[in-house]
């Protein structure tokens, strides 16, 4: 292993370690949630017709009669070994169920992010180069209009258009990627498009302003004086210095994509995290809710560690620490 490689790994580990308090805080609060339930938690979960035996059984399995800190230690002890408990009704291991669902959500979120970047970045470069022109103005207005469309509106409008009116794409359902890639593509198309409406506009807006700021810099003027063509200057000189900002925005957009997955997955009946959490909320399946919160926070800690290291990879002036 080379020396820079080692220092990157070390810096990555330090950032992950710094995120551990956040993970602990959120998961503890998730454990304490059941204390907010009116009366006995077990009673509230099972409903008013539950027998004392059923309540005792539930308490034995999930520890709802224990104080929150004891319940938390118990959960933590299992979690470090990969045991996040079992689901309330089907009694399957939470971790197993959740991992299968997470893969679906990530496929959609990743596809939406890549699609949005692929559209927004070249467009933003082109518009920054002709900032202030009429076409630039038109795209800016279009972007702020798209930013005003919530996901629960885009799912309705796009499915009305592509599925009900044009009948190009299936309205609901899911086919796993490895079972039939083509059908999978047809089924993720609408969810991905719906998430991308907002993301394209968001990336375009941030990237355009960032490119515009880069294009004002002296090294762009010296590249122009050397007689390079505009596309060459945009691609070779303006893109790289703007990347840190775009990377930050990519990390932040994950919050939006995950939040949007609740709407998209419930609307299109896609078995991902969002769909799972909605079912868990209805069933009062607290083990599942807690596992999802834990997974989400952990993902953010990892993503922000990557973004942070990404800056150092892009900008030679920064040192990895």
């Amino acid at each position: 292993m080379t020396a820079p490689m080692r220092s990157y790994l070390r810096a990555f580990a330090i950032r992950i370690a710094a995120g551990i308090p956040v993970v602990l805080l959120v998961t503890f609060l998730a454990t304490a949630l059941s204390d907010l339930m009116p009366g006995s938690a077990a009673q509230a979960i099972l409903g008013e017709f539950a027998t004392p035996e059923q309540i005792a059984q539930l308490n034995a399995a999930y520890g709802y009669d224990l104080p929150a800190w004891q319940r938390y230690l118990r959960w933590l002890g299992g979690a470090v070994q990969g045991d996040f408990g079992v689901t309330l009704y089907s009694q399957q291991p939470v971790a197993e169920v959740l991992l299968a669902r997470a893969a679906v959500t990530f496929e959609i979120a990743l596809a939406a992010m890549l699609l949005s970047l692929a559209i927004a970045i070249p467009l933003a470069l082109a518009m920054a180069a002709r900032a202030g022109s009429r076409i630039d103005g038109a795209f800016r207005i279009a972007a702020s209009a798209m930013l005003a469309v919530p996901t629960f509106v885009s799912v309705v409008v796009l499915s009305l258009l592509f599925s009900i009116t044009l009948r190009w794409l299936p309205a609901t359902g899911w086919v796993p990627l490895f079972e039939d890639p083509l059908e999978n593509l047809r089924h993720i198309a609408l969810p991905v498009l719906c998430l991308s409406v907002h993301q394209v506009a968001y990336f375009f807006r941030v990237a355009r302003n960032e490119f515009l700021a880069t294009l004002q810099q002296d090294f762009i003027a010296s590249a122009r004086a050397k007689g390079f063509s505009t596309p060459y200057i945009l691609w070779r000189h303006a893109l790289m210095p703007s990347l840190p900002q775009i990377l930050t925005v990519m990390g932040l957009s994950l919050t939006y994509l995950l939040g949007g997955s609740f709407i998209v997955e419930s609307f299109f009946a896609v078995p991902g995290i969002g769909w799972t959490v909605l079912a868990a909320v209805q069933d009062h399946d607290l083990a599942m809710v807690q596992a999802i919160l834990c997974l989400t926070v952990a993902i953010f800690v990892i993503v922000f560690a990557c973004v942070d290291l990404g800056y150092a990879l892009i900008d030679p002036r920064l040192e990895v620490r």
Partner: protein
Amino acid sequence: MADPVLLDIAGLSLSLPSPAGDLQILNDITLRLERGRTLGIVGESGAGKSMLIRAILGLASRRARITGAVRLDGQHLGALRERDRRRYLGARVGVVFQNPTAALNAYQRVGPQVSESARVHRGLTKMQARELAISLLDRVGIPDAASCHDRFPHEFSGGMKQRIMIASALAVEPDLLIADEATTALDVTVQKEILDLLQILQQETGMAMIQVTHNLGVVAGRTDEVAVMYGGRLAETGPTPQVFAAARHQYTAQLLAAVPSLDSPPDRDLRSIPGQPPDRLIGITGCPFAPRCHAADAPCADRMPVLRRDPAGHGAACHHPPQDVPLPEQAR
């Protein structure tokens, strides 16, 4: 190569539209530069020096209205399509800007930046580009050039970065090197090193050079010709020794009295010119310097003085040339 004139600027004017009306940025600039010679363009900030350079290079804003002609090597640049002009200029002209820290791309290694224009305009291979970059870095006085090739700009000092900028401007073996305030941002001692380096490089390559500066000390003794700009116009132009010995424009005379040269003793009395440069709304009829000029009278405010050159090329646009005004000791 019969024609000794390399750069020929004839009646160049440039105006920019603004909400308050058109701004006359450059007004009837006529200048010539012969091969291998050095021209100094002097003026306060806002005098139009940088705009003149941008207009020559075709980098002025698209909204700018330009009249007059710029010829490089006999080629009328305004007659070329933008793409062709860019290539034509890129292969013949090198530019060094004021702030080397901002003018170098912080995200790219130094060597590829130095050889970039040769790679684009001459299609060098990677190996050729590397050899060229190292030899150029060596030539501008970067120690251990081979190992510097793969380092980033932030690893160098300001003076070293300016040397790197000069190396990158030399990559296409230009006929003309434009140094736009190239030493302004540097320490005084480094300024002198860079100016000396430019002079040596010019002698070695035989290229022509334009030194744009607000510092007469940079021009003194290092240029063959000098052009003094004020308010977007040429105030005075001519062979440097003649202009310094016998300024024919009140502005030049006052500038010579105001600006210390690099070699002047620190306790020298420094006089400044009172007042502000004029604003550029079209419609000024008189001499732009009149409001700040102690020799100005009524005709100065009404009538634009015309620049007439003597056979040596020395001329000034002034109604009251200061030959009879005793000048203080001059920087030479």
